[in-house]
């Protein structure tokens, strides 16, 4: 098989394994849906201010939770599944075959990005049907562009993060400990107008805040721009840093045993 055909081959089986694994489906698919339903139901149709724009709470939460779902499908899924496969010896075993390393990684990243697109569709659909937040079809190219840059960057960060996770048991706690607080601090779970500016300045250091803002701009009409290149650039820089760290520190052999 040629390299690209082999990526497709790898991807096909990664997708099967992903959808059969209750942990990955639970974390990546059901959790964001649950959060959207909870936030949408509790906060109803009050108004919030995000990026200087006054919008319905639901209009804020749909793109916010999609942001979270994209990060979950990429960074979280990759960090956890790669650590589990590494400690199982599956990565080491794969390296013992003629399959090139990049094919394996590309298959996994492809799996994550496809899952991210599915989550965009699912959450946008729920947002439209349950909360009347209609999908901005005219902005589809911009939305997909922001998604692609974010998904690529957070995939790199997820692969890099595996180097900091020593065991299978440590994977979920480390990933959640990093991501969950940042979702709150970055205005993904709590709207901007309720966050002290000091917290927002802190969150500005990390890529989640910038990705959320870029995605919000693309999704919600009324802002200053559709594509916010400044925020996307920060996300991309984080992605490149993740890529370099991943190239330097990613390992194929188990750390334990």
């Amino acid at each position, binding site marked *: 098989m040629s390299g690209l055909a082999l990526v497709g081959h790898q991807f096909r089986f990664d997708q099967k394994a992903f959808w059969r694994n209750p942990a990955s489906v639970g974390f990546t698919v059901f959790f964001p849906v649950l959060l959207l339903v909870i936030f949408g139901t509790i906060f109803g149709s009050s108004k919030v201010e995000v990026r200087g724009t006054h919008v319905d709470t639901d209009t804020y939460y749909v793109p916010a939770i999609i942001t979270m779902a994209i990060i979950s499908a990429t960074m979280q899924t990759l960090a956890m599944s790669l650590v589990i496969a590494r400690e199982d010896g599956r990565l080491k075993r794969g*390296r013992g075959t003629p399959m090139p390393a990049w094919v394996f990684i590309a298959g996994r990243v492809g799996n994550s990005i496809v899952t991210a697109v599915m989550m965009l569709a699912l959450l946008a659909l729920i947002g439209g049907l349950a909360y009347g937040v209609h999908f901005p079809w005219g902005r589809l190219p911009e939305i997909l562009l922001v998604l692609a840059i974010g998904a690529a960057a957070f995939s790199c960060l997820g692969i890099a993060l595996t180097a900091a996770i020593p065991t299978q048991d440590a994977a979920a706690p480390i990933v959640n400990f990093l991501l969950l607080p940042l979702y709150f601090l970055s205005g993904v779970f709590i709207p901007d107008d309720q966050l002290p500016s000091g917290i927002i300045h802190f969150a500005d250091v990390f890529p989640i805040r910038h990705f959320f803002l870029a995605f919000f701009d693309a999704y919600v009409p009324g802002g200053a721009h559709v594509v916010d290149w400044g925020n996307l650039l920060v996300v991309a820089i984080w992605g490149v840093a993740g890529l370099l760290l991943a190239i330097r520190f990613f390992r194929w052999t188990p750390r334990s045993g």
Partner: protein
Amino acid sequence: MSYGETEAVRGIDLEVASGEIFAFLGPNGAGKTTTVEILEGYRRRTGGEVRVLGEDPEHAGRAWRDRIGIVLQSNSLDPYLTVRESLELYAGYFSHPRSVEETIALVGLEGKADSRARKLSGGQQRRLDVGMALVGDPELLFLDEPTTGFDPSARRQFWDVIESLRELGKTIFLTTHYMDEAQRLADRVTIIAAGRIVAAGTPEDLGEREKAAATIRYRDAAGEEVSIETLDPVRELNLLTSAALENGEELDGLEVTRPSLEDVYLDLTSTAAGE
């Protein structure tokens, strides 16, 4: 060959002929996995020369990997893929794979082809592991302690699979810490202990050692236990029994024992480890 601070193995000199089953036998921590990982190209050596299928594994590429199959010491399966899917996935990695159905039959998993790996028993998982190494139709197969932790019937089933590979003419490099496994499967055995080779030969050769020394035990007239180690038990017994007959004595509890192959192995490996 060494890694980290301590030298794990040294002065190991092996040659494995094409088409043979070669057993690399030794207790845990003897250096078997270090050696096999150097041969598989996973580990760098600090010295020495290694050629596997004509290439140095440290620098060998995809074409070389296309000709080998590797079964690691622990199972490395995707728990959510079925037997057939796992084999299809691996078949895609190789340029001339064996048919998936044929491989399923070869490892005796016909009844489990559509079961997910996580639902298989330990022995079945191990056979799937071997199937994933075989589906690329390799010339050379590495098996690192394939039956550790198996119950006797699972071990026997596994041995049958390996026997059928012999008929296919595969070269197999098997590491094990079970003497009986090496004896049952291997054409040639090399015993390693504490990083050095302590014995090498066919299982029969190593068996010769048992003929080498025998122990004669009996109780003398005073009721004392006597034990004589001898290389020539026939002559020794003849002397002993003639003397006893002449003197009208009994040789109570007379027995001649030889060390089993297991004893030879334990003796060899414990001597080396005690150095």
